[in-house]
């Protein structure tokens, strides 16, 4: 049961859920949730391949950097969302039609 294919299937389902969230939701914070799901799918793939292909921990390093980048992305993205809400009084993605306030 714990084969590479099952881990890849779980990762694929996570990525598909992230894409579905980004396509279906119109709320910017919800789209950031979808990005987190997709980054988790990528990190899980790295960990699974490093276990089943050569077991030399390089993939763990890559997953670690993916987690770091996801944290930085969430901080900056949410700051932009809060700034956007101060200016436009909305967090709907269709209201973000011009960059200048």
């Amino acid at each position: 049961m714990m084969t590479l294919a099952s881990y890849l299937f779980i990762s694929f389902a996570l990525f598909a859920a992230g894409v579905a969230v980004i396509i279906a939701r119109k709320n910017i914070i919800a789209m950031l949730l979808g990005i987190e799901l997709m980054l988790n799918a990528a990190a899980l793939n790295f960990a699974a391949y490093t276990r089943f292909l050569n077991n030399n921990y390089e993939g763990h390093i890559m997953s670690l950097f993916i987690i770091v980048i996801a944290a930085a992305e969430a901080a900056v993205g949410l700051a932009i969302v809060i700034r956007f809400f101060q200016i436009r009084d909305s967090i709907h993605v269709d209201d973000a039609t011009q960059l200048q306030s």
Partner: protein
Amino acid sequence: MFGSTLFIISALLTLGGAFMVVASKNLVHACVFLLASLFGVAGLYATLGADFLAAIQLVVYAGGVVILMLFAIMLTGGSQDLSNKYGLNKIPGMGSVRTYIAGGLSALVISLVVLKILANVIKSAQVGELPEFTTTVEKIGTMLLTDHILAFEISSILLLGALIGAAVISRPRKG
């Protein structure tokens, strides 16, 4: 036995959480289901023998990112999936049956192509018994500070830049 039980529980938690993130209407509920899904991914890391990654996943995501998301949701007051000021809550042209059929078919074709490419890799993978449990913290620490020292330092500068950038972007406007 314990490993496969943990794998089944974690996989169900991950997939169910991800599905509920897609399905739930309330944004706070979606955030909590995302937390469940991230816990499941941490369990999957544990079944892969990556104990350090599982701990980091719990600390960074459960302690940091999800709380940050909840803060942003509360600050913007948008727990509902609001429509915009014109009352639109969908892209025009999305939501008809034809677009869903086209999207599903294209996703099927893309996944078949990717699986065809990956099939050889999956077959050639060594599927053996899990080795005796050894902690990975020492090896990862050694590798981070020898082979990957440049990426390590660059990521520290990236985090500093993200911290300052977030503070500068979201500061209240003067005057």
